[in-house]
């Protein structure tokens, strides 16, 4: 059985590989294989998988990618993820990708979908719209039709329609994967010193660039290894990290939080890995099942409308209670409209619930961690010293 350090070494290698060699190798293994990229925050990867394709999560270039061309496409007041994504495209790092999906998350990613069509006219590029109306007969019908169009398009790329049976099999594979992800998150919430936040992030990140079957195996191995190893427990406080659902923070930022005294017991990093919060039925109409799961059993985030004022922000309160957290850290990417506009409302909800919080901004290439470490350290101290008084 591999050790946690061996598994994390593999995940780190995948994380650092900005040429996506694992995905390239996967594609090269069989001539008929295709790869479809997607951006945050959610796409139904089951449909891509059902078409014998690899869903490839593209979440920007991180802090190791030198952005040369990408900056020529964006003004200084636009967030970082589109410019590093453009860099990945223009520099040929995504030249093996057969399609790109741009989910409905914000105006920047939305507009990037159109840019992609112009910049890479030979690549299938689709803006993936999701409903903001959550009634089955309204938003559900609309979304099912959108899913049918996606299924049709991917079937065309494959050269063969995607069948219901293939879809149900893929749903089962992703149900299994999500169960393992939830298990890992529960494990970390119970024993965060055994599953550091940076490791959990790397594991989730690996799931974006390898097949779901490989990823599930990696998670199983990690859970077994992490459960068997004893690691030193620090006198850290327990926090929920939020706002990090699109542009990802640098790995060093995540590490810095724990070094500063904050165990991350829940987060909204790489939400696609656990967007659907319950198993999707594997019988019946698979597209309707995926649609219903989206409408009724999916994560809350700033990109989704919350129809009920009383529910606004409660997902965060519930996360704090569920994980026995002592505070919340809002880390939002600079110029991220959804996260930054949502933040004051969420903060009001937390204040009302008596949950302490701090907030800062970052970019995926932020290099200076000292101010964040100091802020998080002070927050941890304040929780330790004054919580419950």
């Amino acid at each position, binding site marked *: 059985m591999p050790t946690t350090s061996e598994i994390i070494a593999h995940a780190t290698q995948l994380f650092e590989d900005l040429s996506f060699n694992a995905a390239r190798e996967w594609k090269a293994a069989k001539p008929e294989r295709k790869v479809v990229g997607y951006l945050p925050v959610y796409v139904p990867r089951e449909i891509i998988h059902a078409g014998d394709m690899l869903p490839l999560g593209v979440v920007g270039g991180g802090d190791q990618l030198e952005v040369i061309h990408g900056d*020529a*496409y*964006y*003004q200084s*007041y*636009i967030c970082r993820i*589109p410019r590093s994504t453009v860099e990945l495209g223009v520099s040929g790092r995504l030249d093996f990708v057969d399609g790109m999906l741009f989910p*409905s*998350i*914000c*105006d*920047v990613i*939305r*507009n*990037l*979908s*159109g*840019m992609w*069509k*112009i*910049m890479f006219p030979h690549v299938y590029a*689709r*803006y993936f*719209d999701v*409903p*903001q*109306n959550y*009634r089955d*007969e*309204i*938003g559900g*019908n*609309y979304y099912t*039709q*959108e899913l049918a*169009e996606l299924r049709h398009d991917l079937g065309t790329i494959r050269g063969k329609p995607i069948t219901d049976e293939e879809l149900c099999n893929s749903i089962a594979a992703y149900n299994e994967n999500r169960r393992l992800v939830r298990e890992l998150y529960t494990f970390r919430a119970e024993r965060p010193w055994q599953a550091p936040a940076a490791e959990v992030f790397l594991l989730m990140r690996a799931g974006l660039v390898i097949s779901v079957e490989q990823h599930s195996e990696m998670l199983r191995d990690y859970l077994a290894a992490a459960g068997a190893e004893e690691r030193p427990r620090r006198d850290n406080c327990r926090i929920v990290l939020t706002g990090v659902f699109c542009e990802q923070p640098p790995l060093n930022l995540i590490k810095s939080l724990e070094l500063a005294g904050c165990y991350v017991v829940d987060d909204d990093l790489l939400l696609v890995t656990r967007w659907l919060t319950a198993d999707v039925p594997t019988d019946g109409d698979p597209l309707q099942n995926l649609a219903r799961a989206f409408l009724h059993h999916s994560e809350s985030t*700033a*990109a989704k*409308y*919350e*129809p009920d*004022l009383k529910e*606004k922000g409660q997902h965060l309160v519930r996360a704090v209670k569920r994980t026995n957290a002592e505070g919340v850290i809002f880390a*939002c990417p*600079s*110029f*991220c*409209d*959804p996260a*930054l*506009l*949502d*933040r*004051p*409302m969420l*903060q*009001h909800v937390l204040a009302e619930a008596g949950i302490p919080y701090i907030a800062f*901004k970052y970019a995926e290439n932020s290099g200076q961690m000292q101010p964040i470490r100091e802020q998080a350290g002070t927050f941890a101290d304040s929780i330790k010293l004054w919580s419950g008084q």
Partner: protein
Amino acid sequence: MTATKIVTPKAAAKDVEKDLSMRKQKAMMAAHYDRITSAPETGSKTCCTFVPGNLNELIMCFDLLNNLPEVNAIQAGLRRASGNFVLEAEKIGHSEDVCTYVKSDIGMAAKGNIAPNGKKFPDPDVLLLSYTGCFTFMKWFELLREQYKCETIMLHTPYMADGKVTPNMIEYMVKQLKEEVIPKLERISGVKFDIDRLRESLKQSAKAEDDLVRVLQAAKAKPSPIDAYFGGIYYIGPIFGAFRGTEDAVDYYRFLREEVEARLAAGQGPVTPDGDMGEEKYRLVVEGPPNYTNFRQFWKMFYEEGAVVVASSYTKVGGVYDFGFRHDPDKPLETLAEYCLGVYTNRSLPMRIEMLTNYVNEYQADGLLINSIKSCNSFSAGQLLIMREVEKRTGKPAAFVESDLVDPRYFSAANIKNRLESYLQMVEQKRAGGRAAA
């Protein structure tokens, strides 16, 4: 028809020349603000909604007064009050990075919510979250809902990513209208929905839209009788705001059209705040919203150089009518859906590029100028690619200036003037090159 320019030095905004249509509009706006601020006394109910996705005809069916927060933010910008409102919003926790319309609105509420007529805005009875082409709108009304604790009705407009409106999109929107929006508006207003009343308003809308298109397309003439950006912002005021579907709007746009046709017949250029523009030296297409805190100063930089804007994308943000769409009373709900789907910012980037390219060609413009807005991702993200593509497709030079909607901190007059002057020199060089080649 005689020329309709009126100069009244003793007017409130002295030294500013205005068309008669501008004065007429000012009176319409003043009356509307009075209706809104007197709602608590008259018993009227107010509904807030947005310019892109504005369902004014439907709102009127329920006797609701339409109060548009974007328009209020613009008014605050023009009155130079928005800077303090933005600071106030930042003081209470809003990020410096986000939309300044939102912060102006929230800051204004924090500072007493005073309307342009000096009276207090009533709290809205309902927020009609009909937004199209901008995610920020969704967050904006979530913020207002938190503040006012009033009912909020979502109408979600899908994005026209592939350049077409699909039956699925229309069906989705009509269902939302039938099963969510209309029943809730009935309940909140206490007024039963009458589809014939909606049809009547839609008929009026189409009439006004016809005249608006004729006004904007008058800019194809040389010289252009209008400035389709700075002047255009006045022209779109009633139809993008609370007047579409009213007799007032029909009268206003007929009046405006006649005024513009008279200028056209007389071979006159646009009226600027300093009077007739003089010789038309440059014809530009402009993409992006303007800056409102220094609106006159910004405009002056153009007309002092003899630059007139012959077409702009911003004047399509509350509805694109120049490609034939009109509100259709024969399919009242479908037409509202089509309207929402078609507004400029709900159009994909390739569609925007095509539209701007066509404008440069059809309006015989010298090139494209982009005013990129710091806090408006919907417009701004992708504009550098738009600039390069339009330049490539038209062979005409394009340029880029940056400012903000209503945050005066991001208006740098010297930088903008410098860039504009350099750009116009580039246009001259291009012309000289063209002449030499001929």
